[in-house]
């Protein structure tokens, strides 16, 4: 059968220098208005990114009302203020606030998705989110229970295992434990991550619609697990290498293999007795050790961050490659997790070295990579997708969801 509906690549037209202006104005006005403008800033940013995304000659658009987002922002600010004030006087009360917020997360997630999608459009048709709150809570509770079960089982296994080691000092047994411990940990972490991630992504995608056309993701839990396991293993390997490096550096400092005596200035020292010079030497070695530890800490953060970026890209690919629109049209996501991770890492470094000024360019850069590796593969015409009736969507869930770090774009 001849396919007269060719696949269309997503094209990102955003440019760093354009967005920089928008970002800068947003920043200045947000600070000048003590945060009130933040709602308008968010809408402008989303509009820019949406309108810069093109598929088959048409752009996307965003219609969120800043006033609605402002209401949500004020609510978040109020809660944050209550938390800070109460933590000074009554740690118990602030703990209660934190607990309540965490319990309400699924609620805010659903609200946020509804607002976000209902205000996103392509060629005049709006998206929609139909997920209901009860299901969100149900899934979350089940996932938490299973994770807790995992931890309990893990704990029991280790108690038994270490009890075994204590009973008789067995070199083979203990070395098996030492090696298997991180492996089991990685496996457990991957499994739990896979549960949460698959639960969330499937919940979002399977309840999303474009016009009257459903979106459905057919990726199975097993595939999620494989992806998280691979990412976690890579991260574990990187951390292992770091640990070896840290150990090697500190060992060498101790044994004095590397000469780290600080160059003393030419002026005669005020204190020329040997004891204080030796003390200076020890201090110098301590400084080196501390600074190498500091570098190791930074590198650890970078590894964890890279793990997050790698995982996210791999999961995005998995989700989109298994998503169908109206049960026929498909998507292809070909972003390379390695390349995406490198982009994110280099972005962070550039942002740090430019004291934040590179941030808008960084966002454009990573968005361009992600979008330019997405393709829409229609099977037949999409002209039969039409509008569906919808009611007004509440907005304040949007800001709460975003404030707590849930960046869920399509």
């Amino acid at each position, binding site marked *: 059968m001849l396919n007269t509906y060719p696949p269309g690549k997503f094209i990102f037209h955003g440019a760093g220098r354009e967005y920089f202006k928008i970002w800068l104005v947003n920043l200045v006005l947000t600070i000048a208005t003590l945060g009130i403008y933040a709602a308008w800033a968010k809408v402008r940013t989303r509009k820019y990114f949406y309108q810069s995304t093109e598929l088959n000659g048409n752009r996307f658009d965003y219609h969120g009302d800043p006033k609605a987002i402002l209401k949500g922002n004020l609510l978040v600010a109020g809660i944050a203020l209550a938390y800070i004030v109460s933590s000074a006087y009554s740690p118990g009360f602030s703990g209660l606030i934190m607990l309540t917020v965490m319990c309400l997360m699924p609620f805010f997630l659903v609200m946020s998705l509804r607002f976000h999608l209902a205000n996103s459009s392509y060629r*005049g048709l709006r998206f929609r989110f139909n997920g209901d709150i009860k299901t969100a809570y149900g899934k979350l509770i089940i996932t938490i229970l299973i994770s807790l079960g995992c931890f309990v089982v893990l704990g029991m296994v280790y108690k038994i295992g270490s009890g075994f080691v204590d009973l008789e000092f067995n070199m083979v047994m203990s070395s098996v434990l030492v090696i298997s411990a991180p492996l089991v940990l990685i496996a457990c972490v991957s499994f739990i991550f896979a549960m949460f991630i698959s639960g969330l992504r499937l919940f979002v995608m399977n309840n999303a619609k474009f016009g009257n056309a459903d979106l459905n993701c057919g990726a199975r839990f097993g595939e999620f697990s494989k992806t998280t396991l691979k990412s976690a293993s890579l991260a574990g390997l990187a951390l292992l290498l770091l640990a070896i490096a840290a150990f090697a550096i500190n060992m060498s400092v101790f044994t004095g293999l590397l000469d780290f005596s600080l160059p003393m200035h030419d002026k005669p020292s005020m204190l020329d007795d040997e004891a*204080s010079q030796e003390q*200076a030497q020890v*201090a110098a070695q301590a*400084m080196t050790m501390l600074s190498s530890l500091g570098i190791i800490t930074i590198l650890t953060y*970078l590894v964890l961050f890279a793990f997050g970026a790698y995982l996210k890209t791999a999961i995005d690919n998995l989700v989109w490659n298994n998503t169908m629109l109206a049960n026929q049209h498909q998507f292809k996501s070909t972003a390379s997790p390695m390349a995406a991770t490198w982009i994110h890492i280099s972005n962070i470094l550039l942002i740090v070295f430019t004291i934040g000024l590179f*941030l808008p360019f960084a966002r454009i850069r990573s968005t361009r990579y992600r979008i330019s590796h997405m393709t829409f593969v229609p099977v037949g015409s999409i*002209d039969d997708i039409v509008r569906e009736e919808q009611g007004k969507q509440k907005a304040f869930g949007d800001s709460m969801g975003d404030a707590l770090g849930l*960046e869920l774009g399509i």
Partner: protein
Amino acid sequence: MSPTQPPTTLQATYFNGQVLKGTPVNVHNNAGQLVFFLGDTKHTIALRSVKRSESFGNAPIVLELPDGATLEFDRESSLNTLKSWNALSLNWFEKVQYHPTRWLFVSLASIAFATSLYVQGLPMLSKWIAFATPQATVSALMEDVLPTLDGVIFQPSKLDEKTKAKHQQQLESLMEHSEDQAELAHVKLVFRSSKIGPNAFALPDGTIVLTDELLSSLPAETIPGVLAHELGHVKLRHMTRRLLQNAMVGTLIVIFSGDVSILVSSLGTQLVAQHYSREFEREADLFAIELFVKQGRELAALELLHEKLGSLDKAGSRKTSYLDSHPGAEERIQLIREKQRTPAKASQP
């Protein structure tokens, strides 16, 4: 009609918001009404009721019609005509973006604003908060600091009671004639042995900590200078102010850096914290100098203190760099010499 005049009829695509299909239409302006034909039906929409939201870059210009439909115009060919129809109301910051010189000015102004905020505003705000809070509240909030430090960097002091009493006496004589007696009433002196070398600390609740290591590496006559310096920190509530400033700077940096918080904020906070710290050291030095002058003590003891401290300094350099947490020894000695030359501050003992 000259060729440079913008066209009076524009081509647009009409999306009705119900189906994906877009219909090409020709739109013209009839006395404030947009007119176009969909098939045989004539549509007339008042320009006033049309919503136009900001569009960027080279994206099409979208006019939102009251019934939810939209008209999309190609930006390049339609911009001027739409402007002449007053269909586009550019908000002031859109205008700014179209004028590079103006947005350059805005950028510079914003950078200047942010800088002055960080340099002037934050210290002022934390100073105000620190002094507005009653000392009793601060002490209550900070009473865990010393026990925490005791667990980490402090060990019990190995000094004998006589030496401790001697330094206690020195402290009291410094506070005797001080006008700030009321403010310093809560000051306590404690002794510790420190794992991180010679140091003296002023904690937010008014506790001054002298370490054995400091006492053994400095000549005895410089110790009152150390105590006076720490008294300055206590009186001027430096530790509290520093905690507040760090918290605020950290928050600002998180806002600036968006979602890249961890690395950027900790690095930035450290750099900025060092800068503020030097200001505090200067203030404490000044306090010590003035206290000495008021009590008729010899400033030479302070000079000797800073010379000794300068040589103890691990970095070896006596000049100030941005990364230092205190001014270089040269600078501090200079400050003392300046004060010596202007004995106007000396008052009756």
